């Protein structure tokens, strides 16, 4: 499942909630690999007060769906959950969650890494940082 949300992201509650909503997976998966990206209060040599995350509605969802399809083609995966936050984000708040369930660990670990790497290079999100001076700057990749 792919979600783009503009409110606080609690990755642990989301994973738990999602697993409970998929009872057919109970007893089937032996491995869950997870990546959580969190906002730091420091970047490129400066303190950062907050982040604004812009995206391209519909294209972002389409790109994430393509990435998910590619992962499912390459690895034996039972399920995938990707949630990305947009809008105003504060330090220490989670930005992105990628979770992959599989029978054996190799598949979930590899797919999780592929998904976050692909998301970072292909999904149209852009970060703008607000510095303590109230200056804004776009993050470079």
């Amino acid at each position, binding site marked *: 499942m792919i979600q783009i949300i503009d409110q606080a992201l609690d990755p642990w509650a989301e994973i738990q909630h999602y697993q409970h909503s998929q009872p057919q997976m109970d007893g089937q998966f032996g491995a869950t690999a997870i990546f959580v990206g969190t906002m730091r209060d420091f970047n490129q040599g400066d303190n950062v007060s907050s982040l604004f995350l812009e995206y*391209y509605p519909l294209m972002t969802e389409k790109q994430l769906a393509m990435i998910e399809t590619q992962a499912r083609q390459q690895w034996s995966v039972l399920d995938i959950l990707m949630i990305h936050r947009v809008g105003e984000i504060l330090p220490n708040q989670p*930005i992105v969650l990628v979770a992959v369930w599989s029978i054996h660990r190799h598949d979930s670990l590899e797919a999780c890494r592929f998904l976050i790497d692909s998301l970072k290079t*292909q999904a*149209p999100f852009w970060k703008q940082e607000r510095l303590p001076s109230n200056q804004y700057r776009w993050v470079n990749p």
Partner: protein
Amino acid sequence: MTIQVRYFASLKQQLGRDQDHIDLDTPLTAADIWQQLHPQLPIPSNLLVAINLEYATWSSLVKDQDELAFFPPVTGG
């Protein structure tokens, strides 16, 4: 034919607007459309192109009703 051209992130800020519309008589490439819309502005290096929500190239042809987008490298995750 009418093409919607969308801008995001730093490009949107630089241009001061988030979209343009352009009427064309024949299909043109993404690069041609950029030049028609911004004759004074060379294509920024690293700028990316999408047509109908998928990545495209500067030489991709844009057809009637297509949605064209220009944006800087992505920085999500």
